[in-house]
């Protein structure tokens, strides 16, 4: 009574025709979230950890100042330096830099400019304070000490 035919074996392959679509979806996600690095960092950056972080609401109002030990110690020495855009500068030129950044903003937004200080953990307060004095001089009073969330801590 071999009436029961064996069922045709179901195909064991995973259909791969949807694979490109999945990959494209991931691709688009990363394309949208990506921010290409605009500046080449000339200084070392190990951002300190902190808990009480505030998010910046408007990215266009933020300008960055990097402080840290130069990567190329042969050329720039081993003392922490200040970098804006793509160049290392002395503290005295910060006022000029802030004014340039302010010019990019519209009239009403100028006093809301926020300076994000990205400072290496090993830098000393001396140089940070020099920068802050210059920022006061330039009337850019909102400062954000960039830091990364402390992974182990309770938020």
């Amino acid at each position, binding site marked *: 009574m071999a009436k029961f035919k064996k069922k045709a074996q179901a195909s064991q392959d995973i259909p791969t025709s949807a694979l490109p679509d999945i990959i494209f979806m991931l691709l688009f996600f990363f394309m949208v979230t990506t921010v290409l690095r605009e500046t080449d960092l000339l200084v070392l950056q190990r951002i300190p950890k902190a*808990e009480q972080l505030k998010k910046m609401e408007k990215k266009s109002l933020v300008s960055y100042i990097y402080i840290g030990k130069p990567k190329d110690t042969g050329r720039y020495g081993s003392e922490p330096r200040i970098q804006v855009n793509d160049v290392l500068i002395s503290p005295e030129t910060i006022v000029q830099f802030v004014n340039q950044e302010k010019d990019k903003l519209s009239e009403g937004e100028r006093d809301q400019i926020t300076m994000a200080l990205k400072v290496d953990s090993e830098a000393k307060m001396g140089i940070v304070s020099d920068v802050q004095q210059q920022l006061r001089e330039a009337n850019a009073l909102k400062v954000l000490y960039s830091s990364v969330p402390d992974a182990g801590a309770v938020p």
Partner: protein
Amino acid sequence: MPRKKRGAGEISTGSMADIAFLLLIFFLVTTTIASDKGLAIQLPPKPDPNQPPPDVRFNERNLFKVLINSQDNMLVEGEPMDDASQLRERVKEFVLNNGRNPELSDSPGEAVVSFKTDRGTSYERYVEVLDELQGAYYEIYAERLGVDTKTIREINNAEPSLQDRYDEVKKEIPMAISIAEPSKTGGGS
């Protein structure tokens, strides 16, 4: 002469996934998911040269002094403290004293936390301590408003009722963290 049979006019899509992978990996590597987070402070405005500095007289009890020297050692109200994590409770106790303990503040409105570093203090230590000081205030605000500290930090006019209450609490208990100009005693650059 029989014509050659033409193959179907299709582009092979087998390598499509590979191409997409390649692009994906490129963006994975170059991506830096926006991480504009940090401790926000407000610098004091530039002193006016025409006006003499105001003569501020503080009652000693209303001042909570935090000092850090160039060796990253901390002095809190005259006593050395190693572990910055105790600082938060001390600040909260100081601010919310309301005149009970004669050594601590009269009222939250008058309480000022003075934070002074040296030019040789490391930035890491500075951020660690500032984090605790701000954390104390955010916890006070959060307790008053009955929300968690994360909500307080991310407050931005989205909820007008909460924002109004927050502004009121802030008027009553201003976040008075005074960051003094670093001293030069410890050398440093």
